[in-house]
């Protein structure tokens, strides 16, 4: 089942202002592909993902999944958000079962499958806990398990690790690669972190802002599992960073006063552990 984004434009018209968030975005995702959408913040990454999920309607264009036009949200496109979006009134196990409950799966079967996926994210010990008893990383694991139970071909992830500390993030990135490998899902992963994109993706799509559109695509043909220290990976990160820097600079110029200069206020040239966090 391939996923096609066909000529999608999105405008938001509110009382105060009109924004042109996406401009004729066309993309094609192959089954089982891992794609990262990368771009400066505000370029429309989340909006594009929401349109694919069916949570937002495209102003123009359409989304095709397996040849059929997508109308509204559905469990054939599971989604994970930056916040876990777990329900605080349910125990972990019931949270994981939620999607299956909506689909009318019988109790026994639900429990069994929920446990299977909880095991995949290593949290069976916490099945009876409530959400507030879990750390941020554990919540995202539960959210991942909950998304996996839907058995969708497509998994949409909107900066799911952005709020986590870097150690937890690194572990989850590795595990996600593993799970993607086992489940063979098509994953569309939004991030503003270049390293994360190169580490995870088969293909990185760099987006431009105002209006949001596809700027350039990079195929990442590195062996897996990938490590951040790998020389080829570092090279690739630098390549993509060049492309992105131009975009970030443009956005910043539009936002800040005219005397702002990226060389003076270096946002990107420091290569600490979290490149691109200042985007």
């Amino acid at each position, binding site marked *: 089942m391939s996923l096609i984004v066909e000529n999608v434009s999105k405008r938001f018209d509110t009382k105060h202002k009109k924004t042109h968030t996406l401009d004729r975005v066309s993309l094609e995702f192959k089954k089982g592909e891992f794609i990262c959408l990368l771009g400066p913040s505000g370029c429309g990454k989340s909006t594009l993902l929401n349109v694919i999920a069916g949570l937002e309607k495209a102003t123009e264009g359409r989304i095709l999944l397996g040849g059929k036009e997508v109308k509204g949200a*559905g*469990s054939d496109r599971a989604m994970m*958000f930056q916040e876990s979006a777990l329900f605080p009134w349910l125990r972990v196990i019931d949270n994981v079962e939620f999607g299956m409950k*909506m*689909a009318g799966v019988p109790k026994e079967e639900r429990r069994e499958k929920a446990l299977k996926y909880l095991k995949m994210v290593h949290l069976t010990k916490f099945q009876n806990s409530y959400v507030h008893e879990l750390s941020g990383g554990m919540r995202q694991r539960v959210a991942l398990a909950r998304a996996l139970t839907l058995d969708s071909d497509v998994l949409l992830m909107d900066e799911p690790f952005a709020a986590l500390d870097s150690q937890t993030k690194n572990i989850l990135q590795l595990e996600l690669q593993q799970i993607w490998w086992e489940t063979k899902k098509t994953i569309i992963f939004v991030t503003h972190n270049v390293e994360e994109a190169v580490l995870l993706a088969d293909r990185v799509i760099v987006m431009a802002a105002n209006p949001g559109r596809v700027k350039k695509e990079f195929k990442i043909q590195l062996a897996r599992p990938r490590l951040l220290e790998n020389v080829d990976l570092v090279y690739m990160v630098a390549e993509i960073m060049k492309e992105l820097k131009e975009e970030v600079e443009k956005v910043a110029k539009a936002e800040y006063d005219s005397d702002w200069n990226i060389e003076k206020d270096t946002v990107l040239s420091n290569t600490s552990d979290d490149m691109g966090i200042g985007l």
Partner: protein
Amino acid sequence: MTIWELVYRIGVDYLEIWKSYTFPSPFAVIKTLFGLIGDNTLGIAVLASMKRIIVGYSISIVIGVIIGLTIVRYKYLDENFSALILGLQTLPSICWLPFAILWYGLGEGAIMFVIAIGSTFAISIAIESGIKNVPPLYIRAAKTMGASGIKIYWNVIIPASLPSVISGLKQGWSFAWRALMAGEMLTATVGLGQVLMVGRDLADISQVMAVMVVIIVLGLAVDKIIFGRIEANIRTKWGLDRG
């Protein structure tokens, strides 16, 4: 209790600021209390009052929920009626009594009306704000898991708004309780409020005090045992008590 007795001794016996019929001693109150229990006055009054408040409160829940849901559903109503309802809620419900008496006569109907109107608005406001404050993210997440329409209402919106709805119900109960007492005192039908008034009419300060104690104990009991438990349960589940 000891403080009360001490205050009574000093105030009445030594300083003679109060006469013994304006400030009762705790022993007199307890004696009266047993007297009222003994001749069944209290039992009958409590039953009558409880019956009234349960009916009145139930009516207000039904109407409050309907108003709350309607406001959430229709934006137009929201814009025009929310302020009105907020205003109505600040009006002590006993102010409705003249209306109620005109409409229902001086009796059961009037008291029910005053009880119901006392808590209806608090409940409808709680329902409305509870639903409006459900994080949109929960609903979006549920949609991507294949839920829609009534399923979202049942499985997400209702449980998510429960903490706010419960505190609204609790507040509604306390309004209803006050309205009940005021209504009974003014209309003199059988009930706790009326026993209190009889005490006043007979200048029996111990009886007044005894009934006040009963009113406080009953009010607290419902508040703490019923609503308190439900609230505590939700708060620990959600982790709202931390920090």
